[in-house]
């Protein structure tokens, strides 16, 4: 299935013309495109998960009960920092893909580490926020509103954590397997996942943090 795997200068020469040209066979290209399509379809169903969570959150904004309000609790500054880290990590993921497709393994690995550091920074900020909310009595048990908030933002955070695991696996595969066609194919799907999380986050920033602070 894999076909020939080129390495080094030979590989670079091949991909200079066409990133996938030096790799694999017609059959393996078909497999790659099928898996990409499958992953797109999966992302559609994940989109519905987030859509339902957004709708749930929207309904539960009427469920503050006597709990704290988002206006008191949200920090737009921190949300902006999280946004910056995540958007930047999408850019650096683009650099992973670019380096990997041009056969530069070390550079790809470097960008991968940078992306993971940015992702870890995002998660650290989010966990800090959660801890502070808990401390101020705005945990998920505080009211329907806070349950909805933690469900939506927490599910996104969980996805980011899964994305980090995927990237760690990709890093190991870069080292162990090199930039072979199956590895590049997997990298493509991890990329789709990571950029998708960016999009969801933009939704969270626009529909959770901004209105929450402005309310």
């Amino acid at each position, binding site marked *: 299935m894999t076909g020939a795997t080129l390495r080094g200068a030979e590989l670079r020469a091949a991909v200079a013309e066409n990133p996938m040209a030096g790799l694999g066979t017609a059959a393996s290209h078909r497999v790659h495109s099928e898996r990409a399509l499958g992953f797109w379809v*999966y992302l559609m169903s994940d989109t*519905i998960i987030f859509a339902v969570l957004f709708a749930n959150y929207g*309904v539960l904004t009427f*469920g503050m009960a006597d*709990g704290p309000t988002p206006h008191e609790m949200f920090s737009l500054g921190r949300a902006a920092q999280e946004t910056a880290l995540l958007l930047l990590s999408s850019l650096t993921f683009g650099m992973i893909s670019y380096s990997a497709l041009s056969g530069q393994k070390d550079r790809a690995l470097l960008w991968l580490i940078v992306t993971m550091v940015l992702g870890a920074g995002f998660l650290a900020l989010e966990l800090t926020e959660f801890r502070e909310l808990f401390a101020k009595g705005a945990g*998920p*048990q505080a009211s329907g509103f806070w*349950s909805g908030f933690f469900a939506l933002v927490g599910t996104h955070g969980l996805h980011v954590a899964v994305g980090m695991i995927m990237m760690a696996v990709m890093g190991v595969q870069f080292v162990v397997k090199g930039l072979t066609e199956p590895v590049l194919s997997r990298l493509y799907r991890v990329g789709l996942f990571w950029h998708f999380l960016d999009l969801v986050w933009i939704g969270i920033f626009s529909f959770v943090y901004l209105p929450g602070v402005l309310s």
Partner: protein
Amino acid sequence: MFGRLTFDSLPFYSIIAFGGAAITVGVGLAILAILTWFRLWGWLWRNYLTTLDHKRIGIMYVVVALVMLVRGFIDALMMRGQQMASATGHGFLEGDHFQQVFSAHGTIMIFFMATPFMAGLVNFVLPLQLGARDVAFPFLNALSFWLTAGSVGLVLISLVIGVFSTAGWVGYPPYSGIERNPGVGVDYWIWALFISGFATTMTGINFIVTIMRHRAPGMTYMRMPIFVWTVLCSSVIILIAFPALTVAVALLGLDRLFLTHFFTADHGGNLMNFTNMFWMWGHPEVYLLVLPAFGVFSEVVATFSGKKIYGYSAMVKATVLIMFVSMLVWLHHFFTMGASATVNAVFGISTMIIGVPTGLKVFNWMFTMYRGRVRFHVSMYWTLGFMVLFVIGGATGVMHAIVPVDYNTHNTAFLVAHFHNMLVPGVLFGFVAGYMYWFPKAFGFTLNQKWGIRAFWGWAIGFTLAFMPLYALGLMGLPRRTAEIYNPDFLPLLIVAFIGALCVLFGIVALVVQLYVSIRDRAQNRDLTGDPWDGRTLEWSIPSPPPAFNFARIPIVDQIDPFAAAKRAGGKMQYEPAGPVELPVPTIVPMVIGVSGFVLSFAAVWYMWWLFVLAALVMLGAVIGRSFVDNNEFRMSQREVDAALRGSAGRAGGVQ
């Protein structure tokens, strides 16, 4: 160490519960004993436990579905008996136990009978009808099956250890919340739905990509068999509907575990949110089950009428229309919620609209038979029975679409009669028709016709006797899910309904006898041609049972029903030149993940968190390990392909 699992969790609280547990354990042990006695473990391991072959996976799905059909039906029989007995006394089931029985019945029949039955038929048939060697993602396919099997195991073990949910198959909060339902029952229900819902979503993705990418050359979308069209639309519904269920049960689980307030009655929770999310999945679910059944009926009617399906393009359009509208009707499950008249009117009208394409299909099936040379194969019995009974159910469905009528029949036995009227003749008859239609393709011999017809009459008469009285009882004021009825006026109709259930019991016994007789007489009923019914689509152009790779050479398609056309022209089908055949390498990993899913859920239900973490790590490790496998297919040389074709016991297909 064992969380909240104690000796008291064993079912010694009632003799009936103990009996159910004893039967479950007994049957399980008997199966293990038979496998060991006949030294079948190796065979099972090679052919089923590690297989990635879509045909074998399909067969396993159908086996699971048939087993769960029996389990769910026993629940139904108990309910009919209890309601009949309680019209003049107390009956034999305590209230809580009765609630467990109807909750298990609904959950099992929808999630663990109908859904696996559909997944099984589609798995077996879809690649064959497309002219493909397998589904797009064989590993994912096996994974879906084993996760489904894991959640089936969870439902079965709830009968032995602990209790099942008492909150109905819909599990509405706040009754399903931790305050009012502190036991393990609702948790069993949540985890079983969560795991099987995930599996079904993956199956839907798999089918969509298979249809988009694995059609034989020349098979444009408008040349696909109707069954494939219905599977495509059904898969799209899966993709869009199932996430809502996943979210609903996950949030309910959070409410129960972490005392959050998604669906609580206080602290700003909103319990109608659950109901909305549940039915955003629940109504599309009905259509994603019934569409493939419609597909089966279309194949059966065309084949046994010896004609192309009437109005192919109208059939396709009706299917697509149903797909869209199915997602816009969910609110009719709770018109009584108190939404504004406008909202109710919108959903009432959309509910009436969805009857139009469905009615169109019924006409198309009738026109397909009109002036056809109709052969009364047993699958045709199921199809005709469906057409008569399903139209009655459709009519009562449109009655419910009228909001003021719905206010009066909401949560009465009338409603129970209506949805059984859709699901039994619609979904179940369709899947059984498909089972009898494609059985020879799967095993190389036909099913006994006589017992199949007896099973049909048992089901058709039994269904009518069991549910027509419920329409009347509902209008007389019998609420659904009533454990004790105390009203002797209801007794005569309840007795009729119980007799109906006994007739269905005969139908089920006849299905078992049919299987036994057919296996016993298989030598006489061999399907040597690969085409026992004079079929029209690609699956009949290959030997029965098909070789592992299905098609030695990939057929080329230039019209609807290509195999019928080739036979009519007396010529051969067109094929691509022979090339290498690549098949997925068998692996035990999907089963490992499925079993881990079962262990993980069981641990979560009983709060054994160390075990939960352990199982989660095994699953994660298996997935990561799998991601390192590059070569997951093996190649067969032309000689091996020829040998395998001869190995199909000389049952080479007519034109292959």
